[in-house]
């Protein structure tokens, strides 16, 4: 009886610790799959046609998932490269700048970075369900004047200009390729993972553009 209760307590501790660990790992403002995220105005059926237009198929899902294991312990290094690129590109740093002083907001950059790491994993998980679609809309709103700065309660510029969103597809995917190759995958698999990433990032940047579009133009 005593043994059983000890085991039960231990199990409860593990569950609680596990939950806390998960909570601790979830960065502030990361609301994927929660009721805080509104429904995307885009439908799953339209998403299918968009994926078809990008030549995005089952194989891409397979290769994105393959990239998950390769990337999961490299997200910090990847983010360092991406943040290095942003830092060397004043027209991008601007969007993290204080609205009054123009100086980059360190906390803002740090908080976005934590969510960005989860974005890498979420992209690699490739679960294209309603939660995924809804969260793309949420990310779009957070780049857009509707919600920019609100998640992190910062006083920064009011909108990320649209043109830089699809433009970032190139630095993001180009710099990711060496990380895909770091765990011994064949050159052919690396190429296929890279292509799947290009398609997925393009797909997401299209969806993030939705709030910027004139009515009916999306």
């Amino acid at each position, binding site marked *: 009886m005593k043994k059983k209760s000890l085991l039960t307590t231990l199990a409860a501790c593990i569950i609680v610790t596990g939950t806390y660990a998960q909570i601790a790992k979830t960065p502030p403002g990361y609301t994927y799959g929660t009721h805080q995220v509104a429904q995307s105005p885009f439908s799953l059926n339209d998403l299918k046609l968009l994926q*078809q237009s990008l030549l995005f198929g089952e194989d891409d899902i397979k290769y994105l998932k393959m990239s998950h294991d390769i990337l999961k312990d490299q997200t910090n290094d990847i983010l360092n490269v991406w943040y290095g690129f942003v830092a060397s590109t004043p027209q991008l740093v601007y969007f993290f700048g204080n609205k009054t002083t123009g100086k980059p907001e360190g906390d803002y950059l740090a908080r976005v970075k934590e969510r960005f790491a989860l974005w890498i994993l979420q992209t690699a998980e490739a679960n294209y369900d309603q939660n995924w679609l809804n969260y793309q809309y949420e990310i779009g709103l957070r780049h857009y004047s509707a919600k920019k700065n609100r998640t992190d309660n910062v006083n920064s510029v009011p909108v990320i200009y649209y043109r830089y969103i699809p433009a970032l*597809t*190139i630095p993001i995917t180009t710099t990711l390729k060496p990380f895909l190759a770091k765990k011994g995958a064949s050159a052919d698999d690396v190429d296929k993972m890279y292509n799947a990433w290009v398609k997925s990032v393009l797909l997401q*940047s299209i969806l993030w*553009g939705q709030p910027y579009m004139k009515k009916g133009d*999306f």
Partner: protein
Amino acid sequence: MEQPIKGYSYGQVGLSPVTSADLYLLKKTVMFTEEDEKHLDLAGDILKDQTNAILDVWYGYVGSNEHLLHYFSKNEQPNTEYLTAVRARFSQWILDLCQKPYDQDWLNYQHEIALRHHSTKKNKTDHIDSVPIIHYRYLVAFIFPITATIKGFLSNKGHDVATVEAMHEAWFKAVTLTVILWTYPYINRNEF
């Protein structure tokens, strides 16, 4: 002497609202360098006698996707005259992308192409009765098939793998840059 391309008005269009300073920063953001310019120029030489075959592939792709063919149609009936007129300009676009300098004329013409996809000017160039706009999402989506399918053509003239890769990367950057410029009319004021 070659026949002029109907509706092709490079150098004779209105001023782009995107400035050359904006273009410069956008090029930096897509990591577009002088090396890319050189490789695009080489790609132009390689592709110039293959444009018909390339267009066959691209039109095959559009034709096999009803939701894309829709933009060349009225009541879901594709307009052959429209498809043919666009094709001649599309062929020229391949060469312009590779070999025209990205100067004010180039920038202006990207805006003209943008307007022709958007409700502002769609169908007007060819006096066609078709759907009023090509939706934004398919413009950007198009970057991928246009880039993936060009690689085979770039390798058709015996260049080494590294050179083909470099040309392909330059092409990807150039197409992305171009398509971004084409989205201008779709976007709310001051948000581009």
